[in-house]
């Protein structure tokens, strides 16, 4: 095998390895950006719902979402990534913004809990994983308290 062939083979395999890993599991950065996008949507949706006269508990939850976004910004910076631009609302967050009711908020928090649980196996950094776990705990509490408020 000539030098050129060896060089290309080595470079190709080096580049192919990360690509295969991406296909198998999302990257830590990708997971954090997704969680941050969800937090930003939640923050915007609760703000809109509060303006429409939603339940009093929304104010405390929105403050928590803001703290979560700040914490994720710190973790993103730790791995060299910036805060993503504010996203558009998706169907669930738009429903909360439009209806401003506890049921819509429970649906949103339910999606957040699922997303955070599913993210944990993909976070290699222990500190990031623990921060994400505390935010997961917060969303689980939001969901429970919204249920109590709605009943």
């Amino acid at each position, binding site marked *: 095998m000539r*030098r050129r062939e*060896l*060089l290309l083979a*080595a*470079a190709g*395999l*080096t580049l192919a*390895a990360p690509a295969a890993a991406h296909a198998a599991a999302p990257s830590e950065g990708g997971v954090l950006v997704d969680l941050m996008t969800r937090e930003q949507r939640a923050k915007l949706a609760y703000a809109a719902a509060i303006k429409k006269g939603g339940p009093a*508990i929304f104010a*405390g*939850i929105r*403050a*928590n979402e803001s*703290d*979560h976004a700040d*914490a994720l910004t710190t973790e993103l910076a730790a791995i060299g990534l910036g805060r993503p631009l504010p996203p558009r609302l998706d169907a669930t967050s738009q429903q909360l913004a439009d209806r401003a009711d506890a049921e819509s908020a429970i649906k949103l928090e339910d999606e957040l*809990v699922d997303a*955070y*649980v599913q993210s*944990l*196996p993909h*976070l*290699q950094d*222990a*500190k990031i*994983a*623990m*921060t994400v*776990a*505390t*935010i*997961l*705990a*917060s969303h*689980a*509490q*939001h*969901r*429970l*308290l919204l249920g*109590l408020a709605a009943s």
Partner: protein
Amino acid sequence: VVTRRALLGAGAGALLAGCGPPKATATSRREVLDEQLRLTQVAVAAGSTRAPARAKKLEAAGATASAPAATSLTAYEAERDALAGYVKAIGRLRDADSRTLLGELVVDAAESEAQLAHDAGQDPLTSAFPGQAA
């Protein structure tokens, strides 16, 4: 200027690094889960109605621990400690099964803590990061 030799060496080095054995974990999964079961059993002894189901889940995952005869902690305090333990354990265990199990335990303990605070007339939303180390 990067020479052919340097590039070739870097490529080969990367290949060798990728083929090596996974790093051994210094933390024993069993040891960490045993500690979580111990914390959960304290919550059971303190009167948490949700903790017994979590203890069974941990036992099903292979954890063992002796149940405490009694505790001076309230159910709220014991659940707060259990939640903090689960969060810390997530930092110690990286395998997917452990992370998923511990994530489920975090959800349940967090809800239990919030329910107990609510029932006691306390503000359950005092922290945006429940389970965070003090």
